């Protein structure tokens, strides 16, 4: 199922910019019409997003309506602070290029670099 991940991102963008919860049909209509997409594909994508806790859903009549669990900004902020949090009980989940330093160490680091350039 190549491309489903990309579709997830597209669907999320639609939900983030929507003013209220959307039904599957509304999401399908909001997607670019460049290719024929099946209703069931969009349903699967929304189901995946719900399973991963990125969207909430509520029943309206006989259909599910979906809305994002958080705003886009909050989503990015949450991921980033989780990614940058390397202190305390850190796990080996991510491997960083370098960790952010406290100001004193940062100054020493800069001084070190400057000295080598002289």
């Amino acid at each position, binding site marked *: 199922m190549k491309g489903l991940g990309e579709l997830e991102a597209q669907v999320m963008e639609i939900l983030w910019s929507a003013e209220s919860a959307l039904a599957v049909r509304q999401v399908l209509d909001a997607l670019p019409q460049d290719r024929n997409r099946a209703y069931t594909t969009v349903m699967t994508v929304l189901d995946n997003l719900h399973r991963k806790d*990125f969207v909430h859903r509520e029943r309206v009549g006989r259909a599910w309506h979906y809305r994002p669990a958080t705003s886009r900004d909050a989503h990015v902020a949450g*991921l980033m602070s989780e990614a940058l949090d390397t202190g305390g009980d850190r796990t*080996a989940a991510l491997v960083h*290029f370098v*960790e952010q330093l406290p100001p004193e160490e940062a*100054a020493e*680091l800069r001084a070190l670099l400057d000295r080598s350039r002289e």
Partner: protein
Amino acid sequence: MTAALALLAFAALVRISALRVLPGAAWPRRAPRLGVVAWQAVTLAVPASVILAGLALAVPVLPVAAEDMSDVLGACAVLLREHYETPGGFVVGFFGLLGAVALSARWGFSVAGELRTVHRHRARQRDGFALVSRRDVLSGTWVVDDERPAVFCIPGHPARVVVTTGALSVLTPQQRVLALAHEKAHLTGRHHLALTLAAAARRAHPRSRLFAVAEAETAMLVEMHADDRAAVASDRPQLAAALVKLAAGPQPVGTMAINGGPAIQRVQRLLTTGPALTQHQRWSIRLTALTLMLAPVLIAAAPALEAALLDYCRLPIHT
């Protein structure tokens, strides 16, 4: 009894000498991958010795173990039991077994727990960033809109390298390439496995100084190894500059610290090229690590091997 005592003494010796020798030694920083291997060998050899010590005590009270071992080795079970004899008899054997099982279980749960935590964390990050990142096909990375400069990778299947727009804006094109090469070196070097083992050891024994030091050293040495893989000699100053930009942020600060953390040690290392280890030195380190891994098993099996070699149990059958 002798085997058990020897194993406990070995564990203590490994622990003490690792803490004395490894953190201050110059060679792990010159050959960081070997340094990681050494720390892993220590991390495994210490609990393995203690577990085997418990099992060695338990051999005389476990009839099945003695019979099985005698079958395999062709030694007589009575003799085997004699060779693992303990003065305390049943009680000592029982507690040995209990200790071995408890410690094995503790490690099993810690490794499983660490793997589960890490897996969940990575899946959340991968799924989450997939929704908001732009794929940069050329560099094979995910670019996320955030002004905080950060470059990191999410190991696993599929592995991802994530870069923030903040990082892209402070780095020069050459520095970007070097930073990404550093992350890819983490992935190809499977550094996350070494880090997971270190984290699991610390989870099993949260108060152990040995495993705390092992984790911190492993974390730093994999960074140094990735630095080495990312940059040839002429690129090292640029990699150092990239490191400083990302670690220290853009704005200058007045105060200075005295002692250096991992980032400072890395920058120092990138800016000064020390002599490489000789082949001879490298092999003696590898051999030591291998010995650390094999010694506990050999010590534990020594009484059984001795029993097998003596072989006089069979004599009555032939006469």
